[in-house]
């Protein structure tokens, strides 16, 4: 039964002349391997000729890469002009160098695995600019009073950085729209950071409202900061006053129950700490560095002078 249903390839209806007439189902006749080789080499030769490459039996890429430089050397191309005149020892080196050059160009364009970076073409150096540039002050050259202040500043900046990192690492973030009618601009886009029972509120990054950030009086914070910069350039009283206020505040808070204190007071203490960092800005302290050291700490004092002149 099975032999009846089986159709041998020669008897197959696909081979019948009727079906072969149909162009859609007509399979291309298998050309002899030799003629194929000839045909393909012909078009390749034609292509090579059209592009100005000499005809050769070696048509693989590796051979092309190894020999092309030698060939190109002969022609009067701008590349070759820079290469010193060929001599016996140069031929091999030149070929290798050229191959490396092309390999590197190709590896720049495509992912081609490990290629030794021998050539003059190197990857772009990473940007030297800092994301958040800091003022670099040579502490040794400063007078002792300024040195102490600069140390305080750097410490604060580090603390601030640590806090920011903490915010980004372990805390869950939630974007919320908050309405608070105590401020004229009563609507805010906020980022809430939560770590257990401790909540922190930050401004939403990249938000258009950030420009409109207002303080408790509904004043523009950015404007106020500028004003502060100018105002405090010549006085360091602000810092002392602020510190005194904070000391008195921390004295004032008393915990009745130690266990439950964590929940509430941590929030307050942290916010106070943050406030201290915010308001006792690093800029303020640096501004108080005497201008006599202008040459030594040019970056700092120049900024100060600029803002004072504005």
């Amino acid at each position, binding site marked *: 039964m099975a032999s009846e249903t089986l159709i041998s390839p020669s008897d197959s209806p696909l081979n019948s002349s009727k079906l072969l007439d149909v162009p859609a189902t007509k399979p291309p006749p298998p050309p002899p391997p030799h003629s194929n080789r000839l045909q393909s080499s012909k078009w390749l030769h034609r292509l090579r000729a059209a592009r100005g490459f000499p005809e050769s039996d070696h048509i693989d890429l590796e051979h092309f890469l190894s020999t092309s430089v030698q060939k190109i050397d002969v022609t009067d191309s701008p590349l070759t002009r820079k290469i010193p005149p060929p001599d016996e020892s140069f031929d091999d080196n030149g070929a290798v160098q050229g191959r490396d050059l092309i390999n590197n160009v190709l590896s720049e364009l495509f992912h081609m695995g490990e290629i030794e970076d021998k050539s003059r073409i190197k990857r772009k150096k990473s940007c030297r600019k800092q994301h958040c540039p800091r003022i670099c002050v040579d502490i040794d050259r400063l007078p002792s009073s300024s040195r102490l202040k600069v140390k305080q500043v750097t410490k604060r900046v580090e603390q601030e950085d640590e806090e920011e990192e903490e915010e980004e690492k372990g805390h869950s973030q939630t974007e919320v*729209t*908050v309405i608070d009618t105590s401020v004229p601009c009563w609507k805010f886009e*906020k980022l809430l950071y939560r770590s257990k029972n401790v909540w922190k*509120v930050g401004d939403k990054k990249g938000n258009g409202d950030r420009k409109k950030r207002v303080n408790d009086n509904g004043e523009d914070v950015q404007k106020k900061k500028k004003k502060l910069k100018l105002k405090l350039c010549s006085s360091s009283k602000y810092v002392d006053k602020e510190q005194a206020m904070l000391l008195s505040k921390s004295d004032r808070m008393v915990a009745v129950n130690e266990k439950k*204190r964590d929940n509430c*007071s941590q929030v307050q203490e942290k916010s106070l700490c943050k406030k201290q960092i915010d308001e006792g800005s690093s800029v303020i302290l640096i501004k108080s560095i005497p201008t006599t050291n202008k040459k030594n700490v040019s970056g700092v004092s120049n900024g100060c002078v600029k803002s004072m002149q504005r």
Partner: protein
Amino acid sequence: MGPIRGSKKKRKIEFENGFDCGSSEEGSVDWLDELSKRIVGSVSPSKGVDQFESVFKVSRKTFNYICSLVSEPMMAKTTKFVFLNGESMSLNDQVALALRRLSSGDSLIGVANFFGTNHSTVSQVTWRFVAAIEERGLHHLQWPSSEEEITQIKSKFENIRGLPNCCGVIDTTHIMMLLSATDQTIDVWLDRKDNHSMILQVIVDPDMRFRDIVTGYPGKMDDASVLQKSYFFNLSEKGKRLNGNKLKLSEGTEIQEYIVGDSGFPLLPWLITPYQGRELPETKTEFNKRHFATRLVAQRALARLKDVWRMIHGVLWRPDKNRLPRVILACCILHNIVIDMEDDAFDELSLTGQHDSGYRAEVCDMADKKASLSRDKLALYLSGKLPV
């Protein structure tokens, strides 16, 4: 379904006259007559004012005032809203629709069927109204600015249960939500009663008027945290708020301006909370009683808010959490407008003290030394034991 040709123009003229008429009794009766024909359940002017108030939760007088308040921002945009029969909505229609949406607690489709329009129009009109009322009505919700106003408030609070120099009562409530299980921030909104909710913190005056609100924070936050994140807290800590005249209780004893709140808030010089614990001495028990009675104002105000503006009463189904705070603000402004207009409808509604049923009071044990002393003096003063 587009508007019928010609009818739009006719309606526009009607609207232009209609709004003017809105202020006059006759014109608004005409409008109401038209509206009553359209809406299900028919609010007929002949049936009296009561029915209007029961449907829109405001008196005719207040309704007209709200229309005048929001007319400019609501009609500034070119988009026209229409009923299902193609007639365009007048300002009065739009305000009535928005008030119905905010006060009934019905779904979009429910309100749409009631007015004979589609749910999309209900949503858009309500949102436009919310934006307009917060733009033009925010002056109804602000901290007392004049000395006279604050003196009046203090006097009224003292009349309740004798608390002197008190400027307000602080309280919080939860606006419940049903969130999608796929919401990534779902945990943050889960409050202590395992509901998803948004917090509304209010400071209320003796007339149950909201003087300051903070909303938008998730239900997981406790009352003290919300307070500490508020600008009111910042201003008060810096002495920029509640910094008015101190009251002399006895020789050498003064008390600064303060607000009162329950035990969920920290005890601060400007925020007096009740004594905690059981078996307190008589003076402290008496103080707590008076304190509680004064705080009832805020509880009633919040209960009234949720009772009247029922959109924020029940469990909101997957609300836009960025828009919800604005809806809450609009409801608070409307609540204040009703009080400011001395609306009779307001007095007739029953007063319940329940706004957050099932939520037990939180306990915050943070206390300020100076505030603790002030509270003791206040307790002695109220029980008449403060040495003169």
